[in-house]
């Protein structure tokens, strides 16, 4: 410990304040977990038992790894990284909800394993901070590994998260876009016997894509509640959603397509709406200054939109990881002028 550290340790004891709000990280994580559970419940209702197994697999894997590490740290007398399991629980839930329903359970377990071991524990230990969103980074890493399967003779049968048929879709034209929407038109409300058009199924009842995006509207509502209640970095959310909506309108106008369908696809697809609320707001890997958060959100929407148009599977998480890497630079710009420096208010 150097002199400065000793000095600060002494400060911590006697320096003010001596009053604390009492809202701890554990409480923040527990409340986030509660919000995610609402989304998980809806996803299971909409997508069925497979969604449940994915979520449980992710949660279980994360908790097993966490408990093993926790016990090891305790046994060896090392500093305990996570005293309580709340943060790993949130990570596990996010992994479960960010997996495509078509994925295999082994892949989900693999992503969860990499998330907790490499990008949650490992990243924190070696960099003293999480630069990359753990779940997103784990998915990108696995995606890269699984891309090797492209060279397999029959890649779909190997059970993977990468579906090469996506590359055949042409989202740049209205015809290609409409054609690619067939997957969403299969949505059915079983107990009412209703078959929903693509626009509505994308927003309310998706049986394809990310588990967490089964009901885009619910994610929007629950996410908005979280942003207000738990003070998520709302500027990222707002700027992403507005940017993506504007981009959707623009492409719809340019290609002469249905504006609502474009918005429903680009904004309400699970890989975007769930990611925006619950992954892109992950505090450690996102910028601090307000303007930088806007920049982060806008860039995230643009990158995701471009990758979506090119049918890059996992485009949104690739975009998120790229912006996570840019965060230390974004932290150096976009500062608000402090009190005393705002000319319009009389400052210098």
């Amino acid at each position, binding site marked *: 410990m150097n002199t*400065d550290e000793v*000095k*600060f340790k002494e*400060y*911590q*004891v*006697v*320096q*003010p*304040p*001596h*009053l*604390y*709000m*009492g*809202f*701890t*990280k554990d*409480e*923040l994580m527990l409340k986030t977990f509660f919000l995610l559970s609402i989304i998980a419940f809806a996803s299971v209702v909409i997508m069925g038992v497979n969604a449940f197994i994915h979520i449980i697999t992710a949660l279980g894997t994360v908790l097993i790894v966490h408990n093993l590490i926790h016990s090891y740290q305790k046994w060896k007398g090392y500093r305990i990284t996570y*005293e309580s399991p709340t943060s790993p629980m949130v990570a596990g839930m996010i992994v479960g909800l960010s997996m495509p329903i078509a994925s295999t359970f082994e892949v989900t377990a693999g992503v969860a394993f990499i998330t907790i071991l490499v990008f949650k524990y490992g990243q*924190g230990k070696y960099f*003293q*901070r999480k630069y990359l969103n753990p779940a997103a980074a784990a998915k990108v890493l696995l995606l890269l590994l699984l891309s090797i399967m492209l060279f397999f003779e029959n890649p779909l049968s190997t059970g993977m998260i990468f579906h090469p048929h996506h590359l055949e879709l042409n989202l740049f034209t209205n015809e290609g876009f409409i054609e690619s929407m067939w997957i969403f038109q299969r949505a059915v409300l079983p107990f009412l016997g209703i078959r929903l058009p693509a626009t509505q199924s994308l927003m309310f009842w998706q049986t394809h894509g990310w588990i967490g995006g089964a009901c885009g509207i619910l994610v929007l509502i629950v996410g908005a509640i979280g942003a207000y209640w738990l*003070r998520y*970095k709302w500027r990222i959310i707002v700027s992403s959603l507005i940017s993506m909506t504007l981009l959707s309108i623009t492409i719809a106008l340019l290609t002469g397509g249905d504006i609502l369908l474009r918005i429903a696809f680009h904004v309400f697809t699970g890989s975007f709406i769930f990611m925006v609320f619950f992954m892109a707001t992950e*505090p*450690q890997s*996102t910028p*601090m*200054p*307000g303007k930088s958060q806007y920049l982060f959100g806008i860039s995230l929407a643009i990158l995701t939109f471009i990758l979506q148009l090119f049918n890059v599977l996992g485009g949104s998480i690739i975009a998120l990881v790229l912006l996570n890497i840019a965060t230390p630079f974004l*932290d150096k710009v976009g*500062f*608000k*002028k*402090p*009190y*005393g*420096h*705002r000319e319009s*208010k*009389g*400052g*210098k």
Partner: protein
Amino acid sequence: MVAHRKNDYNFKERGRFEVDISMKKTAVGDPFTIVPPAEKMVLFLRQHVGRETKPIVQPGDPVKCGQKIGEINEGDPWSVPVHSPVDGKIVTIKKLSHPLSGEEENAVIIETTSEGQNSSLSPLNPNDVSKEQLVERVREAGIVGLGGASFPTHVKLTPNKKLSHLIINAKESDSNIACDFRLMVEKSREVVNGILLIAKILDVTHITFASRTKEGQTPEFDELLRENNITIARIRPNYSVGSERLLVKEVLNKEIPSGKFPPDVGVVVHNIATALAISRAVYNGEALISRGLTFYSKKTGGKNLWVRMGTPINHVLSFLGMSSGEFERYVLGSIMMGPLVSDPSLPILKATSGITAFTREERDPYVNPLPCIRCAYCNIVCPVFIYPQLIMEAEKKGNVKALHKLHVVDCIECGLCSYVCPSRIKLTPYLVGGKRRIREKKE
């Protein structure tokens, strides 16, 4: 008894964060109780922001209540004298750990023989004396800012700029303090007299009384203010606005430029308790030897006490029927900004507006902080719009350039960033450290 609605006790900060002021709630209805002097009084020779005063008494000397014991240094415009709070005998002058600086500083120990009569100075008629004489009286009476800053009041009464506005700060933002409110209820005439004296000395055209009270809570006091053309500004329930810089913005919508002071925008801010001390110094010829403060412990709740400076904390505890063995640590003044001491033999200083006593069972919430999760709560709540978390990172690395860029010098040290941190990190010391690092670099 003053009735308070529940929402009177929710101080709302930026980002919808709330400051808990339940301590204050238990004290607002409690009238001042006079605490008799202790057998031995401990008077630090520095109770202001300037240099230590010179002791002008020797061990064995008898002293009278109000008699000067610490004299200002020749040519030092910042220091103010220290007076004996009792009739008694000087026991010794020795080095003790100063509650504010933590350094060893000289303190005079007085053995009390009687409470004495505080009238070492002759009363003045403000109409018969010049402004300079009034300022000199304020200094001779040893008056400093009683809100907590201990800034010598005579300096603030002699600005080198023309002022138009005087703001009296009775915002009483601290969660544990209710003594300013009691001054409005119990010492209203003297407070108003003090305000008028300050206005006369400064020759200001506007006087604003900034209060957190609601209409009708202190009707007699409000009437007195109106009779004397003092505007009442009812400030929203908020902690940080109690800071001098933010209060000016709140009342006058004027932002004090960075590195400047209220007089630079034609304003001066004085605390309500300072106004009372000025009134007593001029009209009664009283040196500043006692003050009102709010004591809080879980056992007693909030208690407003009238205490002489130099009274040890353990004497206050025994007056309240408790012993120092029941407590582990004490906060002097604001619970958000005041220092923490563990030695109950340390005394009340001029700027001690409160004492909060914690037992061993009441654990320090900031012990064993977790790693920062960069939630940005500290940025959101910061009333001066700086980035405490980024400043902490820069300060840890000793990065002066980044500290400059992050405007650490504009921090008002309110403590809100630490207060809201979900990881229980005390960020304030890093901000204070950053400010000092920049200051040292300049020197």
